[in-house]
């Protein structure tokens, strides 16, 4: 029993860290955090770039659709105007 207690005491006794241990831990943690920061930054930048690209593509697409719709609308009114005028002319001929 006494022997066991001695073993336990010895195992739990405070021991000084080996020389340079703290420095090695700090250096390693810095290395790790630096890599993670870069990776996170790259992912965030990719996401932002992706979102911006999608928005830009959508804006271009909307502009193209809008311009096409505008041209169609103006064409529709041009045809309507021409036909209405022709019909007015025919009515005038019938009812001078």
């Amino acid at each position: 029993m006494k022997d066991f207690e001695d073993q336990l005491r010895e195992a739990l006794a405070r021991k000084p860290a080996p020389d340079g241990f703290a420095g090695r831990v700090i250096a390693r943690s810095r290395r790790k955090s630096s890599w993670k920061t870069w990776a996170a930054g790259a992912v965030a930048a990719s996401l932002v770039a992706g979102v911006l690209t999608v928005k830009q593509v959508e804006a271009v697409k909307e502009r193209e659709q809008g311009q096409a719709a505008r041209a169609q609308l103006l064409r529709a009114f041009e045809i309507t105007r021409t036909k209405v005028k022709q019909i007015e002319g025919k009515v005038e001929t019938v009812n001078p």
Partner: protein
Amino acid sequence: MKKILVGVAVATLAWPALAWQINLEHLDRLGAKASNTVNVTLDAGLLQLAGKFLSDKDEDESAVKKLAAGLKSILVRSFEFKNDAAYLESDVEAIRNQLRGPDWKKIIEIRSKTEGNSDVYLRQNNDRITGFALIAAEPRELTVVTVEGNVDVDTFHKLAGNFGIPGSLRHKVEGRIR
């Protein structure tokens, strides 16, 4: 049973929207025979989008923008042919049939063996014009225009004329409609 009820409810809700639009799909086959075709289909969404790209500085474009803001759809089908009789009278009659409902009033009908037949229809809701349709069926040309939604009469007059009614007759005809 629940699905059937939902289906009936959806169909009931969709009916006014379906009934709203004149169907011109049967004219699409004429494109193959025509030497020149114009096919314009603009729904409310596209009309709104088009409005964003119309200039406020240009008088005509500004008027078109104002008019388009109240519209639900514009359909134009226009075909020019090199020969007579490229389309059938039944093609035109199918459109006239859709405009025979109680909502539409024919305000102009021209029948001419040389210049062809023209019809102009208006749909009114109280004092507002909610639809305009034009059929110009000439020997070598067929044009159909339907405009649905709230039609701003003054802007329409400015843009396209008096719905085909000469100024001298306009007041008489409008009086008869009301």
